[in-house]
């Protein structure tokens, strides 16, 4: 029989708050943190809306480590430290080789890239910063988390654009099921409020000028945000043996590839990932009470995701509660799935469905119960969390109450 994998700690930071309790409190309240971007280094960017972390919490990361980190690594370390503390995890010589980290990154550490091309091309500097390579690489957050917490088990970065977090979390589940680790820190991070990244997204013409209104007929696109989310995963046996407080179980994971287009989504891909996830979790569609949608707030995503949900859930599609928490924390790219894990775990624990904020007008193509604007109470036995991405790399997670 395969090992059960449970969640014993969560941590995170994004525009909604500097730790997981603050993020959840804002989600419950249906408060959107999307607003004007304050970063003065954005130069000629037309996009004025985003979801920034206004102030980093006290983190105590030593200067010697800090100087080698891009912002996405620092966010990951802050979230991982919170999750490890929440889990009551003691890491020492006896268990360090049995604890690892898999961290999803959708982009990379771009602040250093930005500084370099401005310094070299505009200011006439002769060389790049010496930490350019180690700061920018997408595996850096995983490395920094392992250094900061002293984790010597499996450690690596995972990347699949907007589904990076879910792939990273699923990969952590695998490490535990395969016996390579007893405990894994897993989640995702990204800090894309940088000129070069926003300029690229601006060119795609998918960014909303006002806010993110998933499933609302008057939606105008997605909004980018920054953040990190992290969870402590461990085998049920390991968690029980150390008397850990179990928050929820990761019941299953499901993947698929669209094999279609680098940006345009399909219905088949998401459908097949959700079906694979239910099968892996041994859950019937009727047992799912909450579905945290990918819900980016683009017409293409919202309508296609709705169609895929209907195919998978049939009549039950109209009975389950759906919401897109991206309406509140925006699309934090590689961090999205991990922030949405916080929403799913807390929905199970508290019996509260976080809403889709900023909703105004019904769209006949998106006619599911998307929990408009206000949270509501509902017992959640099990929840699905969808993550789709450019590249057609779909990853769905199933959580259930323990």
């Amino acid at each position, binding site marked *: 029989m395969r090992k059960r994998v449970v969640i014993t700690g969560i941590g995170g930071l994004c525009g909604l708050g500097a730790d997981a309790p603050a993020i959840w409190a804002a989600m419950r309240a249906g408060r959107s943190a999307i607003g004007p971007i304050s970063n003065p280094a954005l130069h000629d960017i037309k996009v004025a809306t985003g979801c920034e972390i206004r102030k980093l919490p006290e983190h105590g990361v*030593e*200067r*010697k480590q800090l*100087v*080698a980190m891009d912002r996405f690594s620092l966010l990951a370390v802050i979230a991982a430290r919170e999750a490890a503390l929440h889990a009551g995890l003691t890491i020492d010589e006896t268990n360090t080789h049995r604890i690892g980290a898999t961290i999803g990154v959708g982009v990379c550490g771009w602040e250093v890239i930005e500084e370099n091309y401005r310094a070299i091309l505009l200011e006439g500097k*002769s*060389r790049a*910063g*010496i*930490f350019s390579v*180690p700061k920018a690489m997408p595996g850096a957050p995983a490395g920094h988390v392992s250094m900061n917490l002293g984790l010597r088990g499996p450690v690596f970065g995972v990347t699949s654009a907007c589904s990076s977090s879910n792939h990273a979390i699923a990969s952590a589940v695998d490490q535990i099921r395969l016996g390579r680790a007893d405990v894994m820190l897993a989640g995702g991070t990204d800090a894309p409020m940088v000129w070069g990244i926003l300029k690229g997204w601006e060119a795609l013409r998918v960014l909303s000028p006002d806010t993110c209104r998933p499933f609302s007929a008057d939606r105008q696109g997605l909004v980018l945000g920054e953040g990190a989310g992290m969870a402590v995963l461990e085998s049920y046996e390991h968690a029980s043996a150390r008397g850990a407080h179990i928050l929820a179980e990761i019941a299953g994971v499901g993947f698929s590839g669209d094999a279609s287009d680098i940006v345009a989504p399909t219905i088949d891909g998401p459908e097949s990932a959700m079906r694979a996830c239910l099968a892996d979790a041994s859950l019937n569609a009727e047992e799912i009470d909450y579905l945290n949608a990918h819900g980016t707030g683009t017409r293409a995503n919202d309508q296609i995701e709705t169609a895929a949900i209907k195919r998978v859930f049939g009549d039950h599609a109209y009975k389950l509660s759906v919401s897109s928490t991206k309406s509140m924390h925006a699309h934090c790219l590689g961090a999205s799935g991990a922030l949405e894990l916080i929403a799913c775990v807390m929905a199970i624990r508290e019996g509260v469905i976080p809403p889709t904020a900023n909703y105004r007008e019904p769209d006949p193509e998106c006619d599911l119960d998307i929990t408009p604007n206000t949270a509501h109470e509902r017992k959640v036995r099990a929840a699905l969390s969808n993550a789709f991405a450019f590249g057609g790399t779909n990853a769905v997670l199933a959580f259930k109450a323990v």
Partner: protein
Amino acid sequence: MADQLATEIIDKIKEHAEAGAEEITVSTELTSLGIHSLELTEIIFDLEEKYGIEIEMNTVDAWANLKNVGDMIEAVRGLIAQKG
């Protein structure tokens, strides 16, 4: 008394050192500065630009053996003298 070159190099190091660290003198051990080894290399590159000296890669390796701030100052002084 530190001369001008020493003062300049110490000031440069100070920009990278932990705030509130002990006073940096010629006898301060490089390892006690709390500066990442790559950052120390970057300080060397900055000195290279500032003083118009060239540090060969094998010279950089040799610099890895420098023990304290004074050793670093004398190495730069040597390269400036060679250039002169």
